[in-house]
């Protein structure tokens, strides 16, 4: 991309310690068919820039949707003013951080571009899949949707750095809600967890065109199912629940800005402290967790983070031992803890903070059948629908759409409203079996919230199915 804004930026760069521009152009389209009626087609275009200045040890930013030369100049002046005003009171001494000027680019893989299929054909697809969800009079609400986004980012630094990245994402969704009197059950296509980088080729890889009847049938089954029993038992979690378990009780606690206290007024702190890295046993020997921005199609792959730092695969937890944090360069310098390139912003109007990107649990060697066979009394849970965890990311409680009891090594009764609770610091030590690649799914979420001011960002997770022992399980009322 050759954008006139690059020339404007080079012309107005001030004499300061560090100055960068991050231009974000985002175009998205949301297509929804609900109860066989096409909902309003919404196309969104967003484009703006964040100017960041470090000077005299302080930092300031200014974000603007006015990309004219005068708009950029005003933003740089405002950012510089903030840097000067905060220099004497800054929690970070920015003069001690050295950012090497980055050079590079990245583009999402794509074999069937969104634009190559007509709007009418995409609507036809959704109409078909939506209609296939309506299998029974007890299905009271049903919908099918596609959410496509193109994000084009250009990161420039005053000392010649230049990174251009192009992201294309797709989030397909299906949902069926069944009702009988005061009982309502909803079944979905992995929540909104089946989100990937790429084009429409993703739909076949995910089995989108085959899923609707199963989802609707399972909603009816849940309507007729007994409540999940309350007991301490083994729990086998499918990937569409594992991604939430990883996200909340590994990802967030390992964010360095939480550990440094930045998030204590909002998203919270962490039970992890800087001295734990390198020695702390986070889970059983089977627990291997990686930061992997290189995974093709994964939702949050990239070449560079939003501070221009190159992103590389790294183990965060290896054989159960905590290795490194989720934190960008600024946090790494502040905490003196090894991190990864995860300084990210949700768009041009928010500054980068420490985020997850692709945070994956590495597969083991157990088949799904082997894990089921290993359970005397337990439950198989699929698809997260409820999540809650304390501000230190320790005491959690999660609920799933679908539960199925495991008795004497066999899947038996379907149960509704399966929930479980535990404590992060001990839960992962009860990881007893890890599924092999045949059980692995590449998923994520478009809605990870954090930060002041608040930011909602895309996060990727890949996980196999996993078996945990001695978990407190319970159901509804």
């Amino acid at each position, binding site marked *: 991309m050759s954008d006139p804004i690059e020339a404007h930026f080079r012309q107005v760069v001030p004499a300061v310690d560090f100055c960068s521009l991050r231009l974000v152009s985002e175009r998205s389209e949301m297509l929804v068919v609900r109860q066989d*009626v096409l909902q*309003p*087609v919404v*196309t*969104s*275009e*967003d*484009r*703006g820039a964040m100017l960041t200045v470090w000077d005299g040890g*302080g*930092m*300031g*930013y*200014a*974000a*603007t*949707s*006015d990309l*004219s030369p005068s708009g950029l100049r005003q*933003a740089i002046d405002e*950012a510089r003013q*903030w840097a000067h*005003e905060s220099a004497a*009171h*800054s*929690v970070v001494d920015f003069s001690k951080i050295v950012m090497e000027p980055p050079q590079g680019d990245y583009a999402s893989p794509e074999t069937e571009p969104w634009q190559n299929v007509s*709007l*009418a054909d995409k*609507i036809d697809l959704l109409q078909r899949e939506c209609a296939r969800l309506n299998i029974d009079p007890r299905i009271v*609400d049903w919908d099918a949707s596609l959410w496509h986004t193109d994000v084009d980012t250009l990161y420039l630094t005053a000392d010649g750095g230049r990174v251009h990245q192009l992201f294309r994402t797709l989030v397909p969704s299906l949902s069926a*809600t069944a*009702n009988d*009197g*005061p*009982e*309502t059950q909803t079944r979905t296509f992995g929540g909104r967890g089946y989100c990937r980088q790429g084009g429409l080729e993703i739909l076949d890889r995910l089995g989108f065109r085959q899923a609707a009847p199963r989802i609707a049938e399972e909603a009816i089954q849940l309507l007729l199912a007994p409540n999940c029993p309350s007991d301490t038992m083994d729990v086998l979690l499918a990937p569409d629940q594992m991604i939430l378990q990883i996200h909340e009780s590994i990802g967030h606690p390992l964010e360095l800005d939480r550990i440094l*206290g930045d998030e*204590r*007024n*909002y998203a*919270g*702190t962490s039970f992890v402290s800087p001295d734990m890295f390198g020695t702390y046993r986070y889970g059983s020997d089977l627990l291997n967790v990686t930061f992997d921005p290189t995974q093709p199609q994964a939702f949050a792959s990239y070449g560079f983070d939003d501070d221009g730092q190159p992103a590389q695969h790294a183990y965060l937890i290896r054989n159960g031992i905590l290795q490194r944090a989720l934190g960008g360069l600024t946090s790494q310098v502040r905490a003196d803890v090894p991190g990864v390139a995860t300084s990210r912003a949700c768009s041009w109007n*928010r500054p980068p903070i420490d985020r997850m990107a692709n945070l994956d649990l590495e597969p083991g060697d157990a088949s799904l059948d082997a894990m089921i066979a290993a359970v005397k009394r337990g439950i198989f849970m699929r698809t997260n629908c*409820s*999540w*809650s*965890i*304390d*501000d230190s990311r320790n*005491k959690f*409680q999660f*609920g799933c759409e679908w539960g199925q009891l495991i008795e004497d090594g066999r899947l038996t009764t379907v149960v509704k*409203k399966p929930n479980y609770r535990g*404590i992060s610091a001990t839960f992962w030590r009860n990881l007893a079996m890890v599924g092999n690649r045949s059980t692995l799914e590449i998923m994520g979420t478009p809605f990870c*919230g954090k930060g*002041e*001011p608040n930011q909602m960002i895309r996060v990727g997770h890949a996980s196999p199915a996993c078996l945990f022992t001695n978990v407190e399980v319970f*159901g*509804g*009322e």
Partner: protein
Amino acid sequence: MQDYFHALADTITAHLRGQEVYTCTFRGEDSDFVRFNRSAVRQAGTVRQRALSLDLIEGQRHATGNVVLAGDLQQDGARVTRLLEGLREQLPFLPEDPHLLYATEVGSSTAADRSELPERAAAVDAILRAGRGRDLVGLYAAGGIYVGFANAFGQRNWFASYNFNCDWSFYFQGDKAVKTAYAGLRWEADAFDRQVDAAAAQLEALGRPPQTIPPGNYRVYLAPAAVADILDMLAWGGFGLKAHRTKRTALVQMTEAGRRLHPEVTLRENTREGVAPNFDTAGFIKPGQVTLIDAGGLGDCLVSARSGKEYGVPTNGAGSGEAPESLDMAAGQIPARQVLAQLDTGVYVNNVWYLNYSDRASARVTGMTRFATFWVESGAIRAPLNVMRFDESIYRMFGDNLLGLTDERAFLLDGSTYRRRSTGSSRVPGALVRDFTFTL
């Protein structure tokens, strides 16, 4: 800014063809954000953003486009014209929308504050001073928020608010902290100092050795901020017409099985006394109040234009999510000053955190205590409490087990800043509840 928006709307009107009409909504803000940690500045900056959402309508066909604006009429007039042309090209490929509804009677309005915001340096200095000798973490957000509506029929609505919200915590150590906020239109040093002193007084109580209680049922006092968060959870699909008709509401046992809440519970969407715009994106003007729960029984739903058309019910100007923006809970009888005495022995919960449904159809909500939560004995605070998980039904905490609501209410501005600064608020009392279930 209002003139700029009206000029943009006039540009759209001038470019309409044939039977085309449109609705459009403008949103903008000029915000300062100063983030603090350990009584110092973590990140400071300014965000200037403007965007327009335009719905081009021809008969029952329509297409919506959102576009970012520069704030300059020359640039933005061209952008909006391009957007209009793009939407016009989409229309032939779209089916008629049976649920399209928009206002055709013109109801123009203007509600605009005059900015009395403090100098940012003075506000930042005051916050840094408050943090001196303490561990302060939080966010100062301030500036103008602008919302406009226009349509092809000549309706023009404008809302502008210039406010600040300083939302911060004093930390004692670990996860023990007091959270508070000082928000408004005009910074008054005495009022800010009183807020600081009140938080500092609670901070002293956090210095006592913390206590852990076993899971079980306890008598609790939920302070207004905690009540607001629980009601916010209920607002997630609880009161919308679509959620009621599709049985997805958490109040499905009220709609389908006749359950009721405590007769002291009355909830309203109180637009008249809130701080949000009183118009929606289809041009409908919101009524001053909508009673959602009336003395424990179901009241009216929040009805968006789209749901109104779909279900044949008059709209009351709710947004597409049909969630309240200005939730109001009626006060009760418990004198606020007697809260500790009436709690007697139990848990005083200032804030709750990370709520979600553990059983939506039963309106059962789980979440955590957070910040200053205390163990109280014989009407006196004895110790800070280590965080506890609760899992409790709305039907119990605001039904059978509700002992009463306080006679004073807190007005709480929503500090949310996802995408843009919120204009939401709530006005709620505290609640005294028996047999509140803690699980972990």
